[in-house]
Structures are given as structure tokens and as C-alpha cells.
């Protein structure tokens, strides 16, 4: 009875804390400007099914794809097992699904155990890639300290949780063979039965092992759940809405700034009376709140895999730009603003901004807008849109474009071409051989 009460308290606290943090992230995301990503629901569901559920963009790197698939399937299916643990915890039962499900239960437990081994394998491979092989993709200026340890914490936690699960089953299996207490015979334990010889033979020692692992496993999962909102691992939740709200336009199409259209129409035609579009906003983005909620959702979805940076031509040739850093900076900044709101109220200004305090102009001007980063992202994140918005701010609000680009602008404006040629010479090519 005491165990049940403790369990319910832990479970309640974990869910409360998690909901609170998710609500905070949701609030932070909605600090962004509105953008319409609700058209064509049919196509959006398809995109989500393909990209998030079907993992189709992962396959470009087969090793990572297979390993990631193990962890992904393991995560989804293990939730069935967690459901049983929850019910057992609340009602003080033991393996409540064993009797009603009969043979199917044995099959399910078998499947979970095999998956647990696959997850373990994948986590070990992933740890090696990061810490032994030092895969280049996982290094870089933005991948120090927290981002580096975050990845390792996630992998180690998953290894511990899977180990606890298998050890728990092994002890349970041994107790079943002893026909001890409520440990009913519950199907095959294909992996954990192999571990059984490693455990003590005494019933009381086995019960302790089983209980310790049970509590460690479920409390571990609840702690891990609460770790998610602070971690890149949050992608396991946001990958789904993030792909649902994907950009469905051609990648080459940049957003149209309707606010500019009015002003340009007025410039070209003095008799034009602009429509009232409400209070004038800022052109482009200086800070994260000038970006759209979708940009901010993408920042929270980014799992820092670095596929974007790995294919970025600027990054490859040693320039400062790293699309992954753009996303991480955006997330760090919106989190900082969120924390300021929690501490000092919603109108607090800290005098900082995404531009300059987080992302330098040198990074922004190195982008060739080639869309390789957008193509490479397994969950359809678009770092290019943020780069473009920030360039817009620098050019239109500050007039601080590099001098050579200012020359190009004035050539376009005065000569109708980015080079200093006369408009009258534009057709000279027709006279040549």
C-alpha cells in the first residue's frame, strides 16, 4: 500500500513537472510571429507520416539510420510495457497483462527484450561514434560542453534503463521457476533468461533485485521524461508537429514580405493609398521574437545531428557559418527570453539579441542560400529562413550590408543589372557572332 502511494506521488509529480515545462516551451514558441502552416492538411499528414513516422530522410546515412531505427522502434513499443508498469504501480498488481493476454504476452515480452538488446547495441555504437571514433559531424565550435554531454547523458540513460529492464526480467524469470509468491509464469524471456545464471539463487535476493530494477526502471523513465524539455532529445516529441508544419513550397522560394509590398506600391505609384496593415513591424529579424513560431519550433526540434553543417559549402570550406549553430543559438536565445519572462515579467528587456550576441554577421554573410542544410535535415528544419530574415534586418533596418553588396544594390536600382553596365547595352549580345 505504501509502495502504491509513493508510486502515485512520484508519477503525479513527474507528469506535473513535465506538463509545466512543455507549457513553457509552447509559450516560448508562440512568442514568434504568426505564419500560416495549416493549409493542405492531407499533404501535411503524408509528409509527417513519411518523414517523422517513416524516417525516410534518415536513410541517407545507413548506419545511423539502422541504429536510430532500433532506438526509435524500441521507444515506441516499450511504451506498452511502461503502460503495464504504470497500472501495476498504481494498483499494486504484478504483470497485470500476463493472464488476459496469455500467449500474446509471452510474444510481446520476447519482442521487448529483443528490442532492448537492439537499443543497447545502438546506444553503444552511438557512444563510440561520439567518444571513440570522434565522428567529425559531432564536433565543431557549437558542440562543446552542454551539447556534447547532453548527447552522452541520453545514451547512457538509455543503456541504464534497458539494463534495468533486462535484469528485472531475469530476476522475475528465476522467481517464476521457483514458483515464488505472485511471480506467475509469464511467457518466454528469450534474452533475460540468458542473464539468469548471473543472478543469486536465493528468493529474497531475487525479489530485492527485481524490485530495485523495477523502481529504477520506472523512476528512471519518469526522470528521463523530465529531462526531455531541457535536452536535444525533445525531438522525439516535436519531430511530429514539426514535420506536419513543414514548408510545402519549392525550396528556392523565399517568403514574400507583404509589409514591403505596400511601401513599394506607394513608391512606384504616388496615387496609391496603402491598405492599413496594423502597426508597422520590424523588417526581418534582429531577435528570435521577430522570427515565426515555426522557426522557433524548429529550434526546439533540432537534435544537433549536424547533417546540415556537414553538407554546408561554407562550413566545408572553413567559413564560420554552421547551420546547426544557427538553430542552437535560436533555441538558446528563445529559452533565455522565456526564463527572463518567468523571472522578471513579460516586458523585461535584457538588452541582448540573437544578432551579434549569438549569431555574428560573418556567419550570416557566408551563406550561399544553396538549401543543402534544408535538404539534409531529417526533420525538415530550415536554417536558411532564419539566415535570410536576419540579413533582411541588417539590410533594411540598419543599412549595414557589406559594401560590395551595396554596390550591387545600387547597380540593380540604377542600371537594372547587378553590374555597372548601361541598360542601353543590354541587347548588344544580339549583334555578336
Amino acid at each position: 500500500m505504501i509502495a502504491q502511494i509513493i508510486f502515485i506521488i512520484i508519477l503525479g509529480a513527474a507528469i506535473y513537472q513535465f506538463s509545466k515545462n512543455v507549457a513553457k516551451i509552447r509559450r516560448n514558441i508562440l512568442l514568434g510571429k504568426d505564419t500560416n502552416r495549416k493549409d493542405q492538411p492531407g499533404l501535411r499528414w503524408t509528409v509527417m507520416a513519411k518523414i517523422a513516422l517513416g524516417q525516410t530522410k534518415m536513410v541517407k546515412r545507413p548506419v545511423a539510420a539502422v541504429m536510430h531505427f532500433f532506438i526509435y522502434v524500441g521507444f515506441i513499443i516499450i511504451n506498452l510495457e511502461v503502460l503495464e508498469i504504470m497500472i501495476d504501480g498504481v494498483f499494486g498488481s504484478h504483470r497485470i497483462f500476463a493472464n488476459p493476454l496469455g500467449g500474446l504476452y509471452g510474444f510481446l515480452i520476447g519482442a521487448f527484450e529483443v528490442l532492448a538488446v537492439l537499443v543497447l547495441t545502438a546506444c553503444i555504437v552511438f557512444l563510440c561514434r561520439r567518444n571513440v571514433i570522434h565522428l567529425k559531424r559531432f564536433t565543431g565550435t557549437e558542440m562543446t560542453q552542454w551539447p556534447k554531454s547532453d548527447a552522452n547523458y541520453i545514451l547512457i540513460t538509455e543503456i541504464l534503463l534497458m539494463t534495468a529492464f533486462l535484469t528485472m526480467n531475469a530476476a522475475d524469470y528465476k522467481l517464476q521457476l521457483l514458483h515464488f509468491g505472485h511471480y506467475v509464469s509469464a511467457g518466454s524471456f528469450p534474452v533475460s533468461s540468458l542473464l539468469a545464471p548471473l543472478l543469486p539463487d536465493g528468493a529474497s535476493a531475487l525479489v530485492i533485485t527485481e524490485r530495485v530494477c523495477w523502481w529504477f526502471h520506472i523512476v528512471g523513465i519518469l526522470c528521463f521524461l523530465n529531462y526531455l524539455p531541457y535536452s536535444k532529445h525533445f525531438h522525439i516529441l516535436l519531430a511530429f508537429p514539426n514535420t506536419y508544419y513543414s514548408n510545402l513550397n519549392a525550396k528556392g522560394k523565399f517568403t514574400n514580405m507583404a509589409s514591403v509590398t505596400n511601401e513599394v506600391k506607394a513608391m512606384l505609384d504616388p496615387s496609391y493609398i496603402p491598405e492599413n496593415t496594423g502597426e508597422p513591424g520590424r523588417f526581418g529579424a534582429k531577435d528570435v521574437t521577430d522570427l515565426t513560431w515555426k522557426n522557433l519550433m524548429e529550434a526546439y526540434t533540432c537534435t544537433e545531428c549536424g547533417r546540415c553543417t556537414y553538407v554546408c559549402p561554407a562550413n566545408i570550406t572553413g567559413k564560420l557559418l554552421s547551420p546547426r549553430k544557427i538553430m542552437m543559438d535560436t533555441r538558446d536565445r528563445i529559452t533565455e527570453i522565456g526564463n527572463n519572462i518567468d523571472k522578471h515579467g513579460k516586458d523585461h528587456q535584457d538588452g541582448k539579441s540573437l544578432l551579434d550576441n549569438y549569431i555574428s554577421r560573418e556567419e550570416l554573410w557566408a551563406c550561399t542560400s544553396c538549401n543543402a542544410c534544408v535538404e539534409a535535415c531529417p526533420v525538415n528544419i530550415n536554417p536558411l529562413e532564419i539566415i535570410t530574415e536576419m540579413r533582411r534586418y541588417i539590410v533594411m533596418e540598419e543599412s549595414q550590408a557589406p559594401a560590395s553588396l551595396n554596390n550591387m544594390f545600387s547597380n540593380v536600382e540604377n542600371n537594372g543589372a547587378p553590374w555597372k553596365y548601361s541598360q542601353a547595352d543590354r541587347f548588344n549580345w544580339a549583334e555578336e557572332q
Partner: protein
Amino acid sequence: MNNEPLAIPTMAEMAAQGKEPEILFWVGCAGSFDERARKITRDICKILHHVGISYAVLGTEENCTGDPAKRAGNEFLFQMQAMMNIQVLDGYNIKKIVTGCPHCFNTIKNEYPGVGGNYEVIHHTQLIQQLINDGKLKAEGGESFKGKRITYHDPCYLGRGNDVYEAPRAALEILDTELVEMKRCKSNGLCCGAGGAQMFKEPEPGKKDINMERIADVIEAKAQVVAAACPFCMTMLTDGVKNQDKEQEIKVLDIAEITARANGL
């Protein structure tokens, strides 16, 4: 090779005669002013003449689409250019546009509708593919590319930007030649380094220039010809080849040039 001067029809002339061409050839700034790109412009015209498509150009009435301004963040200048161009295009009742520049192609096709310009836009490689499919264009009567190793460099704004990967390859497939792909191609293609308004500024400091990284891919593929489909890529690739002192071994040719040569135009 036919070196007779071409009579290039302009929209103004056509309108004066009360005629409307089937298609407008949007030349673009590079195609109008860049010495190398002007040859490609003329080759596109030769192809259009050869197959007898009724077309015209805007000539001195053409203006920059605003693409480099938009990529650099100058939305004001972009929309100014766009609206002025749309006025001219609509004034001539233009419905269909072919262009030799993926940047013009992307901007007119995707971004002009946002400021009121709606046209059917195709890239010259798509037109060539269509003409081949229709049997109007073959690879006969001209230079033979037999046995040459040719590779194709995907321009970002044609490939990743608009998913046009097959059309330029189709134009090469009808040649009796050895087509090879670089290790980075199609959606994994590497930028030439000129997009996003980089063409008009010095690159940021780094280990090397992007076009040098790209030329290494061309050299690794042991290609004798690298086919381009964008005037900016043309400049960057040509510079890269020169920088590596490979001008004798590697030629950079646009798909339109290759097509024109193969057909003896």
C-alpha cells in the same frame, strides 16, 4: 558551324506587328552582359530558331529580376524590380517564359506570384528535354561527343531549389558519350559558391573558396567536360578549372552549348 548573324526578335517589334510569340526568352543580366554567358544566350536562340519556336526577347526593356537583392535581404529592391518587370511582362501579355538562368527561373516562377506576376516558367534545359521528347531536337549533324567523359554540375536553384534534376541529364543522355556523376550530385550536389548574392562579394574568410572544393569533385570524376546550366556556376567552375591549370583537360560547357554543338547550330 553556322555563323550567320541571327535576327533576334524583340517583344517591341512583335507588338508593333500585332504579333504575340509563343514564348518569351528571359535572357537575364549574366546572359546579357557576361561575355561567356552571352555565347550561351546566342546558343539558346540558335536552338529556338532551329526548332522553329516563335519566341522573342525583351532586349533593352529587360531588367534584373531582383534575385540577388532578395537573397541578400533587400526585399524593397526586389519588389521594386519585380513589380516593374511584371508591368512590362503583363503589358506584352506574356504567359510563358523560358530562361537560361536558374536564379531568374526560380524568382519569376516562385516569387513573382507573391507580388502579382503569374507565368509559366521553364528553364532552358527543360525546354531542351521537351524538344528531345517530342523528337524535334536530336544530336545530329554537329560535333561528336563520342567517348568523352561528361559530368553534370547541379545548380542549387534548379536542383534542390526546384527539383529539376532530370531535364539537364536528358540533354546529355542523347549524346553518345560517357556520363559520370560526381560524388556530390543531384540533391547532394555542392554549391558553386556564387548563390545567395555571393557572386557580388568577396567570400568570408575560410580555408578555401567553394568553387575550388567543387573543382576537386570534377577532377576526381576524371571528367573531360563539366556541363553547367547556370551562368553563375559557369563563372565559378571556369575560374576553378583555370586556378587548377586544367584548361586543356577540362572544358566547362553549358547544356545549351553542348546541345547547339551536337546539332551543328
